[in-house]
């Protein structure tokens, strides 16, 4: 019945095909497993069969419940054998099968016997197996043995017990916590890994007791820790303690910093790196503290080991986000990494250089990157494009060379995602840097002359239609657009026709010429193109005399469809399925957005390091909000949305219901958008709304709300509350919130909810509307010009003492956040050793008032910070308001 494992003679010839498991089949192996029941056990044979079973499981084969039970029972018979090798395979098999509670009982006694065996290997493995499969009740029975094992003189046995303890702590914390004496003893073990495992367990037992953790760290940082792994753990615990204790305000010294610095001289690279990494993420780390860490990382940059270079460059890349100046010393080593074999390292090096680069080094850097771009994969190129975009926003004056670079790479070979990233970047630059508009549009025009991606062509044509007519010489774009009508596929032709119409609608002088072009399109061989041309000719009055384009037509051409496309699709499908005499009514399409795409999913288990958090595309977010709000009839009378804040969390992470709020500011109203997520699979929430208490926000009065009909599990939904406030006034106040809803139980197996629900409520945290909510970040490309042209008419200057602060950079950040304005020309970055700093801010205040701010900071030896604030704006009241904000903030 056994299948031969090897057919020796045939397979020697054909080595490529050879595998001892060739043609293996589950049914046959399960048959073979009957040898486990033989009265005379053949240990080798049994081992081979187990290997085959494990091979099947490893390849992703699954056993049915019955098959697994059968195998499990026959495997338990193998405890009779005294063969060590077979016993090891039996242990492995039991773990793989993860038996149910009633099955566990069968092997418990055998495993407990092994736990007390004189063979160390049996003891260690039996402990790991038993702890893996056991439940709480059994654990009390074996607790005594486990405590003994923790202090066993054989390190393998001790480690097995300690690691099992770490796993068991999750399920049976109260039992494992009783072992702390033994664990403490094991921390002193001479065996390196026992110390590591003991330290990990001890810390987890005490992790909620800050004082105990602090004591543990204090004693161990003075003592001897043998294994590098344990040393790494200790560094992590130490940083935790540092995070919680803060800087000693008198001396400015940080507890345990000396220990971390000492670890930089450890002999294991793993420890050196762990310590360097820990130092770089210390909150409010100073240059003096940072320097030794940067120095060791710099050494790693020229290591022969790729892993070391990667680790160092990745850490420096993160440091560059907060302390670009500190990393500049490494720039030479970093530049040599641009040609690194490992492209991940090269890309990280490039993006770091882009972050630390100053205005003068941009041109040189771009030259180096151009060579680099030709030999990396698209995914890396996209990272580089993103970095260049942010560099350009930081140094708007350099837009020419950066825009040139983007247009050059746009012409080279590349896939869709890469091209899209470039086009998106150019579009963002055009939006944010007014000076870059004309050249940017021309680059895009040139790109669509030879673009293989229909999607990008149509997107660019659409964008061109909106932006092109506003330029100084719109007529020069017409040629590019009309070329598309002649040369492209029907989809692109159709959107080119729409773009032409937009130019015609906006610029009367171009109208006659546009009409000629549109009339030519009437003979296109695609009906969509012909239809569009006819439509536009009629709406723009192309059949008769030249008339003023009226508002409705412009609305039709430029307005966005305020109906979600999915809803439109469903409605149209329904209409076709139930034929009727009546024409389709677009007003019958529901405007409510079913699910909200905005709520970002956070990566599970991610530590908030305060670095990462890439800025999301601001334009697109605002667009989405505008679309959502305009789909709610109650809010359409509020006028144009001025600003939407970033989401403010109103619940702790990992609560039953996750709620955050976005504050939408209108001229005379504010709308709070509560984004709710139900994280309980067994519940369906209905009629969800928020009761807002505005008693601490006197100038606000509630005018309406929009409840959420239903909130199923894990599908985010929104409910809104609208307030009226005095026009143009930056009213502030505090709002407390209570979430109300009807809960219905859901049967998770069928997904059906019960009919009856219970009313319930859930307390949310308070939030405030602050002055910065009335300020939109709008950058200017040349601050000096903007400042001069604004003139000193409404200038207000005053000086403020900010008192003792942590650092200059922290003070600058605080003021920027308080005002909610856009830092210009990279002035938000404070060189880490400077004693004074100037920061330029620009923004748009409610009522569309342009505001420019010049901040000068100075810090003295006692960390007292003084600030001079100069405001220029188009309205003297606004200039005063800015000072009020700072004075009260």
């Amino acid at each position: 019945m056994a299948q031969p494992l090897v057919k020796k003679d045939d397979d020697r010839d054909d080595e490529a095909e050879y595998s001892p498991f060739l043609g293996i089949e589950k049914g046959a192996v399960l048959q073979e497993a009957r040898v486990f029941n033989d009265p005379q056990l053949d240990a080798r044979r049994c081992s081979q069969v187990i290997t085959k079973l494990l091979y099947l499981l490893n390849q992703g084969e699954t056993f049915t419940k019955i098959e697994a039970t059968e195998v499990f029972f026959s495997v338990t018979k193998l405890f009779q054998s005294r063969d060590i090798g077979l016993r090891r395979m039996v242990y492995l098999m039991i773990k793989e099968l993860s038996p149910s509670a009633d099955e566990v009982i069968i092997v418990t006694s055998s495993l407990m016997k092994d736990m007390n065996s004189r063979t160390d290997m049996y003891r260690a493995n039996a402990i790991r197996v038993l702890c893996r499969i056991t439940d709480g009740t059994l654990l009390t029975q074996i607790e005594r043995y486990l405590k003994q094992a923790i202090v066993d003189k054989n390190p393998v046995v001790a480690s097995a017990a300690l690691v099992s303890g770490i796993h068991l702590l999750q399920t049976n914390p109260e039992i494992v916590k009783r072992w702390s004496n033994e664990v403490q003893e094991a921390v002193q073990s001479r065996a390196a890994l026992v110390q590591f495992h003991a330290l990990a367990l001890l810390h987890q037992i005490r992790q909620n007791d800050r004082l105990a953790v602090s004591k543990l760290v204090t004693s161990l940082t003075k003592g001897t820790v043998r294994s590098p792994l344990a040393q790494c753990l200790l560094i992590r615990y130490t940083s935790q303690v540092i995070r919680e204790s803060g800087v000693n305000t008198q001396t400015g010294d940080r507890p345990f910093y000396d220990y971390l610095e000492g670890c930089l001289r450890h002999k294991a690279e793993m420890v050196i790196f762990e310590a360097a990494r820990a130092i770089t993420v210390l909150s409010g780390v100073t240059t003096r503290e940072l320097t030794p860490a940067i120095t060791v990382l710099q050494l790693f940059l020229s290591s022969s080991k790729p892993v070391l270079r990667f680790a160092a460059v990745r850490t420096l890349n993160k440091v560059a986000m907060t302390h670009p100046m500190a990393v500049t010393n490494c720039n030479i080593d970093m530049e040599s990494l641009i040609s690194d074999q490992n492209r991940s390292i090269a890309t990280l090096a490039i993006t770091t250089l882009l972050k630390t680069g100053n205005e003068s080094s941009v041109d040189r850097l771009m030259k180096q990157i151009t060579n680099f771009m030709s030999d990396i994969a698209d995914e890396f190129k996209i990272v580089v494009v993103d970095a260049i975009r942010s560099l350009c926003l930081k140094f708007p004056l350099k837009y020419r060379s950066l825009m040139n670079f983007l247009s050059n790479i746009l012409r080279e070979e590349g896939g869709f995602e890469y091209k899209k990233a470039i086009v998106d970047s150019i579009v963002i630059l055009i939006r944010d840097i007014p000076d870059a508009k004309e050249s940017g549009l021309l680059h895009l025009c040139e790109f669509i002359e030879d673009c293989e991606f229909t999607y990008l062509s149509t997107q660019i044509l659409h964008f061109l239609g909106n932006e092109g007519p506003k330029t100084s010489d719109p007529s020069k774009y017409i040629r590019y657009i009309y070329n598309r009508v002649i040369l492209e596929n029907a989809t692109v032709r159709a959107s080119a026709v729409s773009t032409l119409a937009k130019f015609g609608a906006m610029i009367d002088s171009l109208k006659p010429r546009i009409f000629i072009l549109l009339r030519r399109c009437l003979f296109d061989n695609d009906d969509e193109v012909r239809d569009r041309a006819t439509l536009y000719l009629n709406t723009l009055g192309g059949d008769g005399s030249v008339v003023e384009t009226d508002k409705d037509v412009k609305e039709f051409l430029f307005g966005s469809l305020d109906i979600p496309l999915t809803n439109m699709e469903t409605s149209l499908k329904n209409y076709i399925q139930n034929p009727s005499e009546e024409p389709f009514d677009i007003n019958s399409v529901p405007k409510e957005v079913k699910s909200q795409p905005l709520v970002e999913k956070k990566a599970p288990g991610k530590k908030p390091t305060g670095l990462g958090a890439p800025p999301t595309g601001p334009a697109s977010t605002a667009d989405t909000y505008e679309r959502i709000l305009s789909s709610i009839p109650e809010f359409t009378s509020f006028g144009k949305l001025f600003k939407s804040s970033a989401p403010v969390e109103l619940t702790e992470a990992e609560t039953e219901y996750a709620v955050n709020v976005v504050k939408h500011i209108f001229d005379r109203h504010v709308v709070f958008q509560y984004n709710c997520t139900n994280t309980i699979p067994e519940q369906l929430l209905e009629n969800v709304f928020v009761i807002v208490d505005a008693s601490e926000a006197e100038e606000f009065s509630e005018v309406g709300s929009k409840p959420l009909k239903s909130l199923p599990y894990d599908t985010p939904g929104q409910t809104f509350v609208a307030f009226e406030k005095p026009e143009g006034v930056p009213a502030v106040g505090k709002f407390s919130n209570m979430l109300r809803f009807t809960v219905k139980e859901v049967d998770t197996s069928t997904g059906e909810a019960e009919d009856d629900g219970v009313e319930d409520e859930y307390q949310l945290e308070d939030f405030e509307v602050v002055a910065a909510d009335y300020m939109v970040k709008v950058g200017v490309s040349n601050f000096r010009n903007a400042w001069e042209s604004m003139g000193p008419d409404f200038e207000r200057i005053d000086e403020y003492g900010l008192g003792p602060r942590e650092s200059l950079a922290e003070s600058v950040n605080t003021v920027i956040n308080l005002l909610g304005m856009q830092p210009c020309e990279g002035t938000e970055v404070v060189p880490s050793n400077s004693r004074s700093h100037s920061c330029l801010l620009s923004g748009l205040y409610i009522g569309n008032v342009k505001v420019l701010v010049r901040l000068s900071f100075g810090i003295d030896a006692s960390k007292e910070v003084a600030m001079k604030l100069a405001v220029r704006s188009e309205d003297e009241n606004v200039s005063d308001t800015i000072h009020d904000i700072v004075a009260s903030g």
Partner: protein
Amino acid sequence: MATFLSREVCPTVKNILLLDSEGKRVAVKYFSDDWPTNSAKLAFEKSVFTKTQKTNARTESEITMLENNIIVYRFVQDLHFFVTGGDDENELILATVLQGFFDAVTLILRNNVEQREALENLDLILLCLDEIVDGGMILETDGSIIAGKAATSSNMDDGASLSEQVNVKWL
């Protein structure tokens, strides 16, 4: 996975993979719930393999990032070794685990590190995996100790590998 959250300060290994020259499994072990189904695991293995295939990881361990994970890897003949950890893991710790796994397999296969030999000694390789990491916690990183632990259980001392035993039986 709750255990992963509360243990996040502890160095954690998410998976160890040993793939062949076509990216097929020789032996794999997952410790994290990031890939709940077999198809998710296979998809991950495929993208790891494709991403690293063209690189040269034969003299030194190489490293890359994929889906917010750090992957260290090393290739020998037709065998591809991978160790995966989270994106805030210390890269050098993962590299140490990889080195331990690699050394242990080299010892077990008596320097003949290739797919066929590996499959013939699959039992020992699975035992190795079991001795390196337990539920994500690093158990041991010294290759010779790992190989020693795995080998005590087999009849390696007799100088006969699994397939040789089988052959003997069949002859």
